[in-house]
């Protein structure tokens, strides 16, 4: 039917009206002339007989005039009346929509802030991260040497500027206790690359960037407020770090949270320092700003040429290197992209289920309103107007729902922020005009999705005589559309539940993993050590030894060790190793994870030594222990002990002898199988080194004692980041947990919505078939038969829905593939559990209306009839 034509009626033009009416007058004139009047007289008489010409035209225009405003206002009024008249129905619809739209808007606000918006810097899409890597080795990309960074800056033609940074933790010693503050050491042109200027003060001067020049600091807005009460005269104040003091020259804007949100200080690295000249030292994370109009590809091609040129100039250090360039935003957010889109997908499915539910509700509503609609038809209301009215009702419901949903989203985004503290850019998630606009768009889409089908169907049969045929004697138990909708809801709910079930299972599997070390009763913390101290390794080693001795001597501590990186938490340090004894070209290259640990690490973590001995404490060349995977992968059938290896990337470690083989441990993450690993026994704490302490009681109870002991040894060091090792695991799984919790929540909501849909449809069905049931009971049908019939009707639809959902879940399993651990995306036990759960819940939801059906009183029904 071309019902839409009635929404957009053809308009007769003014000229057409005139010509139609003139024709009439001309014919009348002819008639009068034929009756014997003179032409003038005939015409006058014809005009007279025709009546008010302009009035007729006005009436004609009225026929076509769409009184848009009047009609909308009237529709709105009647929609409000409709809502007031059926509060329960409206409340059900509004709450369902509030949940659907609210959850959707909340997840969208996260996607918008994290994935869609540019980083909060001017022209942020020009910001790139640059790394050096060796394309021949499957190792990680690496930070960049200062001299090379300077060369890139000088030789390239596609970047406005290239800069770099690295961070270390400092102890600020102005106060009674040292305070740990994270400092970024930055290369020249730092602010130029970001495209920002200080909120207060100035950029570094050239002297401050020279070796031996004045020590200058830029501080964060946060530190400025915390330490200096936001005093405007903070410029020129000093901060003290042990023997050194630095003058504050600038306060950076509050939004500037880079390199990461913990950094409070920025100071310049002197590029002309003697120790900054080695081409093989790897210092800087490098950032560059492309010139405007230059594409990423052009930048990559240009830097490739620059690096090739450097390779010819410095064949030893630069020939094997290539440059990798990625947009900074990509680097920042890529890790959370899949989780976020997964959540958005599931929350959109949830909204779809909510809509389906509402379509079913509106459909049953429309059947009840058939009478009202046919009366309005017979009074001459055009179909378009009726559809518009029904849509207005749906729209009003959707609008109220989405307004309520926004409140929900506002509340939810706080929960989301606390759940998702580990996500990048989480502080940028806000509810703003864009989100309001988005939820408004949602409500329009919802209106069309939910309102259109019921409106079209509701106004379809009304042309002839449904007025006479009252719904009284109707027995129409078949509503295939409604049952289809229930089936769709069940199918979508099964899909969501399957996803949630798989994520839960995979989380459970992760909890059951045996990591190869004993993580209970381990306390971790860090000490502020800066890179400057690594100049005197002997002193640093003595200091480390002393700390470890003190820790071991502390009552309540069983063992203490250091490690760069926390065991079981993602931290990759993969390099290629060179075998000093030589290795045939045909044998696989020695690629291994590197761990820098003290000899006590194995005892502290309870990683058994399988063969050989632990690293010796000698002042000679370092020794190392490899894990079993390393020995089996690279030295199958022969002894690995006694060989010497050298890392191609550790500048200050010479060749080391392999003295032992340890058992495998999941060093790089609980969800990663143990990789070939070498433990460099180097008992020297560096910036970023973790202290691991095995405690007798709950780990955190020892924190204060340990802090005091270390303060006694070295009052200028800050001790920070106290946490049980298990806390680190939990943090490392935060994103995993976030998506698991949220998806489970969405799935549970979907299941309850689907059940409400099933319950509602079946109840409605029971209601309209009451007479039939009453008659059958009067004729001797058993209650059990009636219950069985309705129960089966509900369950049959659910079974079909489950089958469809099963297929849908299997088809979409690819989405989850990379996010699961220890469970396949088409895991049969999980999927069948989900189906059983849905069927069980569906059985309960169908049982109630079915029981009600069997309790129909036949006498009552017969009397009504």
């Amino acid at each position, binding site marked *: 039917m071309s019902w839409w034509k*009635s929404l957009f009626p053809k308009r007769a033009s003014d000229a057409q009206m005139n010509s139609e009416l003139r024709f009439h007058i001309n014919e*009348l004139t002819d008639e009068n002339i034929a009756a014997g009047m003179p032409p003038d007289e005939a015409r006058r008489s014809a005009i007279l007989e025709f009546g008010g010409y302009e009035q007729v035209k006005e009436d004609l225009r009225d026929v076509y005039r769409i009184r848009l405003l009047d009609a909308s206002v009237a529709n709105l009024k009647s929609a409000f009346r409709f809502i007031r008249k059926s509060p329960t129905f409206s409340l059900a619809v509004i709450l369902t929509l509030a949940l659907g739209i609210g959850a959707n808007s909340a997840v969208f606000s996260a996607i918008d802030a994290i994935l869609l918006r540019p980083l909060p810097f001017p022209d942020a899409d020009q910001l790139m991260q640059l790394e050096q890597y060796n394309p021949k080795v499957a190792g990680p990309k690496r930070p960049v040497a200062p001299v090379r960074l300077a060369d890139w800056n000088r030789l390239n033609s596609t970047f406005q500027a290239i800069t770099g940074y690295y961070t270390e933790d400092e102890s600020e010693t102005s106060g009674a206790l040292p305070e740990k503050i994270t400092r970024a050491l930055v290369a020249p042109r730092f602010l130029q690359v970001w495209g920002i200027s200080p909120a207060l003060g100035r950029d570094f001067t050239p002297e401050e960037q020279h070796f031996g020049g004045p020590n200058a600091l830029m501080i964060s807005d946060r530190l400025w407020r915390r330490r200096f009460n936001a005093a405007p005269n903070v410029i020129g104040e000093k901060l003290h770090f042990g023997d050194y003091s630095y003058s504050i020259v600038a306060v950076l804007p509050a939004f500037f949270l880079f390199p990461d949100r913990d950094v409070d200080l920025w100071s310049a690295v002197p590029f002309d320092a003697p120790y900054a000249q080695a081409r093989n030292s790897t210092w800087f994370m490098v950032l560059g700003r492309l010139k405007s109009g230059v594409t990423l590809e052009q930048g990559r091609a240009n830097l490739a040429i620059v690096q090739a040129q450097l390779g010819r100039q410095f064949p030893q250090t630069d020939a094997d290197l290539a440059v990798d360039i990625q947009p900074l935003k990509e680097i920042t957010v890529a890790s959370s992209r899949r989780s976020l889109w997964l959540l958005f997908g599931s929350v959109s499915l949830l909204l779809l289920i909510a809509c389906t539910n509402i379509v079913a509700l509106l459909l049953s509503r429309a059947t009840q309103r058939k009478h009202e609609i046919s009366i309005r038809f017979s009074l001459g209301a055009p179909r378009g107007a009726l559809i518009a009215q029904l849509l207005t009702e749906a729209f009003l419901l959707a609008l109220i729902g989405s307004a309520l949903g926004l409140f929900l989203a506002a509340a939810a985004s706080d929960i989301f922020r606390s759940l998702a503290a580990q996500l990048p850019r989480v502080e940028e998630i806000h509810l703003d005009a864009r989100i309001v606009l988005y939820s408004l768009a949602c409500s329009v889409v919802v209106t069309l999705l939910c309102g259109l089908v019921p409106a079209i169907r509701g106004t379809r049969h009304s042309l002839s005589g449904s007025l006479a045929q009252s719904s009284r004697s109707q027995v129409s138990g078949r509503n295939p559309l409604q049952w289809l909708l229930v089936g769709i809801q069940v199918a979508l709910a099964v899909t969501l539940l399957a996803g949630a079930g798989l994520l839960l299972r995979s989380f459970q599997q992760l909890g059951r993993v045996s990591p190869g070390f004993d993580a209970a009763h381990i306390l971790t913390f860090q000490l502020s050590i800066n890179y400057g101290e690594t100049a005197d390794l002997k002193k640093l080693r003595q200091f480390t030894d002393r700390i470890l001795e003190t820790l071991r001597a502390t009552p309540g501590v069983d063992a203490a060790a250091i490690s760069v990186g926390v065991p079981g938490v993602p931290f990759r340090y993969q390099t290629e190793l060179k075998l000093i004894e030589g290795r045939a070209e045909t044998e696989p290259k020695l690629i291994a994870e590197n761990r820098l640990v003290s000899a006590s690490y194995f005892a502290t973590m309870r990683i058994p030594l399988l063969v050989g001995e632990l690293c010796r404490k000698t002042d000679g060349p370092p020794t190392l222990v490899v894990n079993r995977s390393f020995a089996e992968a690279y030295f199958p059938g022969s002894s690995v002990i006694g060989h010497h290896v050298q890392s191609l990337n550790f500048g200050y470690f010479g060749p080391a002898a392999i003295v032992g083989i340890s058992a495998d441990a999941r060093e790089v993450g609980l969800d990663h199988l143990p990789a070939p690993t070498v433990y460099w026994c180097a008992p020297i704490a560096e910036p970023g080194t973790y202290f691991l302490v095995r405690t007798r009681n709950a780990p955190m109870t020892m924190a204060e004692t340990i802090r005091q002991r270390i303060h006694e040894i070295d009052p200028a060091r800050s001790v920070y980041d106290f946490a049980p090792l298990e806390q680190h695991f939990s943090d490392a799984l935060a994103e995993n947990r976030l998506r698991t919790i949220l998806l489970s929540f969405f799935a549970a909501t979907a299941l309850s919505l689907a059940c409400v849909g099933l319950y509602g449809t079946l109840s409605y069905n029971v209601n309209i078939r009451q007479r039939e049931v009453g008659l059958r009971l009067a004729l001797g049908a058993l209650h059990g038969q009636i219950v069985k019939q309705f129960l089966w009707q509900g369950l049959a639809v659910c079974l079909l829905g489950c089958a469809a959902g099963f297929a849908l879940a299997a088809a979409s399993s690819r989405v989850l593939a990379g996010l699961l651990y220890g469970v396949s995306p088409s895991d049969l036990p999980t999927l069948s559990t989900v189906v059983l759960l849905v069927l069980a819940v569906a059985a309960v939801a169908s049982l109630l209306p079915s029981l009600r059906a069997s309790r129909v009183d036949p006498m009552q029904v017969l009397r009504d009839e």
Partner: protein
Amino acid sequence: MPIEKSDLLQGTLDMLILKIVALGPVHGYGISLRIRQISKEVLQVQQGSLYPALHRLEKRGWLEADWGESEKGRQAKFYKLSAKGRKQLASEESNWNRLAGAVANIMQTAQ
């Protein structure tokens, strides 16, 4: 005595128009002429009601309109019945017959 618009039962004019147009494509003047002739001058439709009614029926899709030449060669708007209009006419006719029969019954029985 001719019956004017106000005396016509609501909706009856529409039915009459549909009935006349059902005989073949015809213009507004032709419709008013025929109603007058067939009803033997009893029913006289005012132009002020006829044309809005025609346009309303066209908008509802019961009538279709085309421009063509009248017998005297003038440009005129001809109306003809659509499929939808034919259905509508059938239902209105049967309603009317029932109503008229019922009224007639009462008038006769109550005499």
